[in-house]
């Protein structure tokens, strides 16, 4: 017995020693791909004076998705689309205008069926090759050969810095497409053979602030500053290397930030998933972490199966809307999101403030409607996508609110494929859905959500369709003022018909360690965070 105890203790001791030897050595903070941090190189912007902050050479960001830098069949991920590539135009939602980016100006021809872009001169891709009309044509042709859903009909090079892009239908929407994620301009040298739209992607080369240096699928990707981009703007990067580490689990991302292994964590730059839990933001801020937040025009909604009973009746849809206390829904997210009281689209959406819409919370009125229709205790089912954890919480709260208003709601939490099948077949009463995205997707989502032939539409009616068509396809709505009038009418029609019930508007967040320097207006000069401006103080 004594012998056995000694053996057992020895084994435990050895096991403990083995574990501890694993702990000796480099600190967990040096967790980068090369497992070294270049601590000794002087930062570019450091000067002989003591006033300029000194920054570390490496910035490490935790992110929930693989950036897909090898592309493959479906192209690269959203992170490189926003940090490596740039578009011809960008969208200024505040003024409802498209502003120059790689194109300095453009003209609509034939009601918008063709747009002629005049490109900025002297712009270089990160590999030193010139950005010109051929690069634009290459990018467009690559979308076409891949049969991308948004691909134009074609592009023609007019001269070195002028390119005409042709679309199937006229209208303002064609310009909106050019600000889309998928229209990031890529260098022809990104593929092999060079310039072949069908070529194999070697590495995405763009004009944006980041240049791809290294990539290990599902683990990390490494970027360097694209000095052409920085020099063009007369600014200096605060890092020599930006490492994006893939951490799928949201709790692990937060732990990694707390342990110091990453300098920051960011939401999935597309919005809508893989984000820092909203109810952790206040906690992190109290602990001293910096929380950068930006409202984005994604609205989570209740969508109906409006072609069948019971919700082919707009009065019953209105009853659902009256039953919902949107403030309580925002509390699920620790009030980090905005309750959607003032319209289906976010308040900053063009024309939304002028529309003057106000949703009401009145469960008694909802009961009254059900009673008048003889539908007290109306049994309805709500389908929720299991992959969206937060939406399950929202659905559970909705279930309670609808019960209080006299409905008998049943929740069905479904696997993604099953959810989409039910959605497509209309075999449900209500579902949780979303409209919008980051700013650049405002008009695009309108197209996807209200186009009658779209399987992903949220609602359709004759009036809504006519208004939507005007906005996106009528050449007269290329004019901003006409477009605003039609947008206001569109919002009001959706409200009057209770096409969907808006719940809340989401946000985009970046959380960093207290040592990180970044300005809110630089980080969020667009809806997707731009990391060119970040740096970790030594």
């Amino acid at each position, binding site marked *: 017995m004594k012998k*056995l105890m000694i053996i057992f203790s020895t084994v435990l001791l050895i096991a403990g020693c083995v574990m501890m030897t694993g*702990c000796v050595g480099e600190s967990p903070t040096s967790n980068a791909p090369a497992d070294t941090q270049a601590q000794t190189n002087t930062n570019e912007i450091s000067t002989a004076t003591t006033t300029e902050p000194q920054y570390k050479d490496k910035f490490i960001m935790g992110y929930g998705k693989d950036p897909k830098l090898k592309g*493959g069949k*479906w192209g690269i991920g959203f992170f490189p689309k926003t940090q490596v590539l740039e578009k011809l135009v960008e969208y200024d939602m505040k003024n409802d205008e498209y502003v120059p980016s790689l194109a300095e100006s453009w003209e609509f021809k034939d009601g918008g069926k063709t747009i002629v872009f005049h490109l900025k001169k002297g712009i270089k891709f990160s590999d030193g090759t010139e950005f010109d009309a051929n690069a634009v044509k290459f990018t467009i042709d690559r979308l076409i050969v891949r049969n991308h859903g*948004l691909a134009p009909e074609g592009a023609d090079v007019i001269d070195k810095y002028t390119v005409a892009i042709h679309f199937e239908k006229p209208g303002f929407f064609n310009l909106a497409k050019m600000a889309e994620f998928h229209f990031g301009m890529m260098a022809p040298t990104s593929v092999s053979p060079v310039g072949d739209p069908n070529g194999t992607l070697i590495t995405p080369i763009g004009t944006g602030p980041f240049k791809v240096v290294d990539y290990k699928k599902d683990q990390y990707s490494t970027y360097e500053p694209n000095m052409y981009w920085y020099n063009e703007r007369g600014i200096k990067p605060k890092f020599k290397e930006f490492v994006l580490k893939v951490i799928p689990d949201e709790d692990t991302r937060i732990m990694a930030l707390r*342990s*110091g292994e990453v300098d920051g964590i960011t939401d999935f730059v597309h919005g809508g998933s893989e984000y820092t839990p909203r109810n952790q933001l206040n906690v992190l801020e109290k602990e001293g972490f910096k929380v950068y937040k930006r409202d984005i025009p994604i609205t989570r909604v209740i969508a109906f199966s409006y072609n069948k009973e019971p919700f082919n009746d707009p009065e019953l849809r209105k009853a659902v809307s009256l039953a919902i206390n949107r403030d309580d829904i925002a509390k699920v997210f620790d009030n980090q999101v905005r309750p959607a009281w003032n319209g289906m689209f976010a308040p900053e959406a063009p024309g939304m403030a002028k529309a003057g819409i106000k949703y009401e919370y009145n469960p008694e009125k909802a009961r009254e409607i059900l009673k008048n229709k003889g539908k007290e205790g109306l049994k309805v089912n709500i389908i929720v996508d299991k992959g969206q954890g937060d939406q399950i919480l929202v659905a559970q709260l909705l279930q309670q609110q609808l019960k209080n208003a006299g409905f008998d709601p049943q929740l069905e939490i479904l696997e993604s494929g099953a959810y989409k*099948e039910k959605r497509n077949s209309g075999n449900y009463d209500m579902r949780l859905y979303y409209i919008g995205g980051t700013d650049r997707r405002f008009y695009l989502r309108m197209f996807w959500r209200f186009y009658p032939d779209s399987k992903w539409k949220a609602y359709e009616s004759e009036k809504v369709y006519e208004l939507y068509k005007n906005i996106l396809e009528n050449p007269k709505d290329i004019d901003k003022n006409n477009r605003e009038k039609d947008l206001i009418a569109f919002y009001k029609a959706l409200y009057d018909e209770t096409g969907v019930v808006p719940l809340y508007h989401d946000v985009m967040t970046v959380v960093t360690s207290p040592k990180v320097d970044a300005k809110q207006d630089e980080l969020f000069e667009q809806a997707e965070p731009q990391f060119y401006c970040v740096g970790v103080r030594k």
Partner: protein
Amino acid sequence: MIKYISKRIIHIIPVLIGVSFISFSLLYVFPGDTAELIVMINTGTEPSPEMVEKFRAESGLDKPLHIQYINWLSKAIRGDFGTSWSSGEPVMNEIMETLPASAKLFFSTFAISVGFAFLLGILSTLYKDKIIDHACRIWSLLGISIPNFWLGLVLIWIFAVHFHLLPAFGYGSMEHLILPVLTWSMSFMAIKTRFIRTTLLEIMNEDYITTAKAKGLSEKAVVLKHVLRNAMIPIITYLALGMSHLIIGSVIVETVFAWPGLGSFLVKSVFTRDFPVVQALIFLSAVLIIGVNLVVDILYALIDPRIRYSD
């Protein structure tokens, strides 16, 4: 012995064919239009009907199921599982890239959990109903009850956030391996400890053990020389079943620790309806289990000569 092994090998063939057909056809009962879902998930846009139909034709999804199966099988037996619908890379390349991480995690966990399971199982048997036995049983109950994701996060909090001793996530050095292995081996070890203890205790009641004790052998000699050897057959069988985890892995551990293993790769492929990858992983997992069982059958014959003579 050769006849015995040959017989075992012949029995495998119909099993492999059955497994290949099941793994091939299983995903076609999933709800949803596969082509449409794949295109939408991987482009991030709602695809046009033309895009969906083009994809359907390119990937052979428009052919009858039995034609798809024959085409698939003829390539699979040569190790060609086609290309991933998500990445466009050959499936085997993707698997081989991910396999080292999975193997590292699995074999480390297996070695530690089996080693400790034997130790605790034997101690528990030797000191049945004593404090050591109770402690081992409580330990194994905890191991079974505590969810992996919770344990993983707690260990991260203690060792990475609080004490800064180990990394919270990632793959690379020995340091990165410690917490995922600790997390996963808890449940692995717990289940095996209980099984080993139960098996040993059953054999302790056999007549020949009573005889051995009556002959004056010590408790330790009885357990280590007689009980253990006779318990090896069921124990080896049980341990062999665990080999399937090499391919399936522990999705939870891999997700919590951002470990780029085959488990999370498989789950991601299921959600994105990347059929070539899912088919390959299920098929390879089945092949591995069948292969391991063949090895176990051969080991049976070595451990217990009665089996080879009676077969």
